[in-house]
């Protein structure tokens, strides 16, 4: 994550506001972006987890509202080719653009070292290998091969053959490859895995389903993980709503990297101009102050969004302002009503589609616009629950796939989160089992999960066996003995349980 934290988000000057699909937290983050602070700095200034902030900026970048740039872009003259050209707006696009400059973000010395050791290969190729090697775990199969999600079998194969001809070690037989040989082999293996998965009908269906679920789950999780929006964000949102479709667009500070300067009234103390882009970033304290100013004076935003008053020289300025305000307030109220109606419709649509995640997001917006509405809060709670359950179902699907493909750490996490949303014996049990198969199992957590499963189905011998095994592996012999005995009492015929009891006695 450290590499991600060093990115600097800045607003895209020519971006158009895209309807209402900006969440409170997103609007909040948008309002704070100054084109100078890195993700890490913003996160610490806003009191958010860097991961969370990264996810938000990621989503915004995906919609073209902001761009992410690396602080050390100049150290790498040729930006690496982007292999994934997934459809615009999909999650992976954001990932690609996010992970692309991993190599760039490193100190130059490290790059130089990584590119050494096989001078027989062209620098361009070495760079491509190192780059790809570092991103292997982050790219999905489609991104890796550089094909669209719906690519035909022939397209997948053609992409694979091209990759093989570039990355198979035999292409460089007899050349001194150094550490590149192992990297080439690993890269090749990953390409083969992608090819094999995507060219077999069944495995591809499974993988596609997994990918869809994974993406949906990720979105839902982000949604659920957002805390209640803070007043500043809410205010920003209201302003956004109000200024919707009014020129200039509401996301005013888009003349990056220069932050916006309040245009009026002139008496208002202007925020300190940010340092020029070439200067080193401000220290954290200065940055926090700058942000605080921006947040406190977020009326700057509104001012920037409101067009200059029309010329009416013979009316006193007070009157003119008053009339103008009334005019705008009337317009705002009407627009708000329309938006509320639209939002209501979106909620019911989403619920009908069985898409509680979208319904939840929209309801939250509604709740912010109509803060004291108990009926709305009830609905919110209900939809939140439905989202939890839906997410849990999705996570179960995801976890099954991960477990089948022996990605136990991921599977354990997915099962565990599924169990949180929708407690079930299976989820708890498999979360524990997968955890046991990971590199360094957290036995305490495994035991907790297994115990939850046992509580749900106290007469299931298998669950007690799992719990007993965990105790045994954790070295808690007495507890292990107890659980295994109970399991044996429940299923006296089980060979498995007998085997584990024997093992226990030998311990």
């Amino acid at each position, binding site marked *: 994550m450290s590499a991600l934290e060093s990115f600097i988000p800045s607003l895209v000057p020519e971006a158009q506001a895209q309807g209402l699909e900006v969440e409170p937290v997103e609007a909040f983050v948008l309002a704070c972006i100054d084109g100078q602070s890195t993700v890490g700095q913003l996160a610490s200034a806003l009191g958010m987890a860097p991961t969370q902030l990264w996810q938000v900026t990621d989503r915004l970048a995906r919609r073209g509202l902001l761009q992410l740039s690396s602080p050390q872009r100049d150290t790498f003259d040729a930006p690496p080719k982007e292999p994934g050209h997934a459809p615009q707006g999909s999650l992976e696009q954001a990932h690609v653009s996010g992970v692309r400059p991993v190599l760039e973000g490193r100190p130059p010395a490290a790059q130089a070292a990584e590119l050494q050791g096989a001078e027989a290969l062209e620098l361009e190729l070495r760079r491509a290998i190192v780059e790809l090697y570092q991103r292997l775990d982050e790219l999905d199969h489609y991104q890796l091969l550089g094909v669209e999600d719906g690519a035909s079998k022939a397209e997948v194969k053609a992409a694979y*053959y091209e990759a*093989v001809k570039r990355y198979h*070690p035999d292409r460089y037989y007899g050349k001194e490859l150094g550490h590149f*040989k192992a990297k080439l082999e690993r890269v090749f293996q990953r390409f*083969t895995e992608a090819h094999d998965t995507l060219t077999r009908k069944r495995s591809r269906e499974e993988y596609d389903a997994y990918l869809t679920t994974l993406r949906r789950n990720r979105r839902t999780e982000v949604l659920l993980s957002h805390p209640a929006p803070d007043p500043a964000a809410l205010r920003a949102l209201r302003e956004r709503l109000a200024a919707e479709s009014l020129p200039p667009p509401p996301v005013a500070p888009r003349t990056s990297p220069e932050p916006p300067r309040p245009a009026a009234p002139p008496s208002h103390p202007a925020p300190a101009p940010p340092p020029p882009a070439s200067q080193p970033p401000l220290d954290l304290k200065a940055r926090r102050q700058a942000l605080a100013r921006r947040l406190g004076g977020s009326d700057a935003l509104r001012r920037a969004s409101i067009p200059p008053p029309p010329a009416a020289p013979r009316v006193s300025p007070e009157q003119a302002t008053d009339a103008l305000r009334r005019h705008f307030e009337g317009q705002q109220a009407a627009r708000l009503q329309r938006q509320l109606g639209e939002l209501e419709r979106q909620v019911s649509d989403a619920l009908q589609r069985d898409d509680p995640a979208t319904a939840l997001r929209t309801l939250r917006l509604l709740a912010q616009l109509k803060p004291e509405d108990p009926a709305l809060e009830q609905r919110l709670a209900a939809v939140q629950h439905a989202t939890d359950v839906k997410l849990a179902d999705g996570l179960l699907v995801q976890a099954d796939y991960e477990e089948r493909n022996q990605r136990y750490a991921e599977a354990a996490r997915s099962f565990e989160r599924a169990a949180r949303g929708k407690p079930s014996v299976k989820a708890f049990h498999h979360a524990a089992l997968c955890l046991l198969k990971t590199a360094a199992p957290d036995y305490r957590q495994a035991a907790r999960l297994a115990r939850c499963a046992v509580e749900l189905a106290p007469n299931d011998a298998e669950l007690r066996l799992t719990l007993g095994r965990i105790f045994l*592996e954790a*070295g808690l012999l007495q507890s292990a003995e107890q659980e295994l005995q109970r399991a044996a009492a429940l299923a006296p015929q089980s060979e498995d349980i007998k085997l584990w009891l024997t*093992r226990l006695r030998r311990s």
Partner: protein
Amino acid sequence: MDRVIGIDLGTTNSCVAVMDGDEAVVIPNRGGYKTTPSIVAVTEAGKRLVGHIAKRQSITNAENTVAAAKRLIGRKWNTAPVKSALMTCSYGIVEGPHGDVRIQLRDKTYSVPEISSMVLQEMRVVAEDYLGEAVSKAVVTVPAYFNDNQRQATKDAGAIAGLDIIRIINEPTAAALCYGFGKGVDKTIAVYDLGGGTFDVSILEIGAHGVFKVIGTTGDTFLGGEDFDARIIDWLVAGFQDEHQIDIRKDRMALQRLRDAAEKAKCELSSVRETEINLPFIVSTGRNEALHLQRSLSRETLERLCEDLIERTVDICRQALVEAKLDADEIEDVLLVGGMTRMPAVQRAVTEFFQREPNRGVHPDEVVALGAAIQGAALVDDKHEMILLDVTPHALGIMTFGSYFEELIPQNTTVPTSRAKIFTTSRDHQTAVKILVMQGESKQAGDNELLGEFVLTGLRSAPKGQVEIEVTFEINTDGIVSVHAKDLETQQAQSIQVTASSGLTTDEVQSMIEGAKEYMVERRTDEEFEGAKQSAETLLAELEAMLPEVDRVVGGADFGRDAVTKARQVIERTQAAMDRRDTAALKEQLEQLARTQRMFKGVVARGG
């Protein structure tokens, strides 16, 4: 650039090919044959014979003639294939010092790689004679279903023969390379390879970009032409037994004659409907009465005798399709490889199973060597754009507590590849673990092939199950398997490359290489001498013929008498050198002889 030859080291016949420009060509041996029998013999005089010359004397010298050594290569003494070979082989098989197999020829025992190295060496000499230059690099083919020990032993054989085997490739894959190389083929094909001793089926995808990807391969390393021969032999033996109550199998020479007759009959029945097997004086009874074997064998009978063998190959084809997750109608072409595929019943079975006529464009005996030569050239020469993606034919894993086999790399995984798994200690206070590296498909470790073992020590003393060891398997592009074990707590690691497991220790291979070098020199000298001797004999004959005439013309003069005396001395010295088998001296005399001959010719011309 070094030339790389491609050698198909077959069970019954071997073949060598080389890249000539953009095309691979088979190199004929000195007899003009494109294949050479994989037969090695030691004569009474202790001379080694390889190839056709060894085959010709195999009946009279059955006990000291090794055929089909490939069936034994890389096998452990204590296995069923070796036990069955013991029953049928005419030569002596004994247990070696490492539980491996040794072959007894006269008063010496040879390891199987040593025997195979003699065949490889012969092929190398065939290539060198043809190319007129030394050859040191080769790509050698093995049955796809060979396990790592068998491949390693084949590599050892190459090393003993002084050949750097730069790659071992699978026979059906090689056939596919030859079929698709440089032709822009874009198809999914099946290769049905029924050789002398082994059977393989491979399914490949050939991309128009020059990428050959093996999807799956399966086979049986103990199913081949020899088994068909054995059916005929059994039938002949049983018939003889019924008629004369004599088991002719007990007589080694009779058995060898039966074997030859069976093979011949089988081959003939591919083109004719009926053939006569005639072995006069096959055996003599105690009463000094000689018995003859004479029977006629029809194609129908042969097909009946071998029905189940062919059925077995079809079953394996079916399995190959299942593993490749393909239906028979997704196969766009079928290649037939190996001499056995000339049998009409085999062709019928293949046609029926794949629902298409097999491809007839490849030569079943030569296609494998050609493919090996292509792969060799593609590796060392950048201009050939071809990449071969092969698979590991057997699963790889380790033995776990309770003698179970825990698979790490599944069968038919494209190499290079690597997989890791976490294991834990199985006993309390266990501070060392032994990693037994195995290959095979059985859940029971004992049924699989042991490839190597190593010990990881220095683990923390703790209750069992607490210390974790990560085991990583890796197969690199060269097919070398390496295994690493790492204690996740201390990061202490141990690893091996699975190499020295062909039943030979490194030292043994080394000493065999030395032995072969000596043999190489010895053999070359021999040839040189024979060559010099031949030239000398020709010259001598001419000189002898001209001597009286020369004597008549110039004998009167002093210088003439001198010249004749000198000529007689040269002839004497040449004779002596020939008797001593002194090549160097003989070569010296050859020059003298040639000069004398030129002088004599001049004298005779002028005198006449």
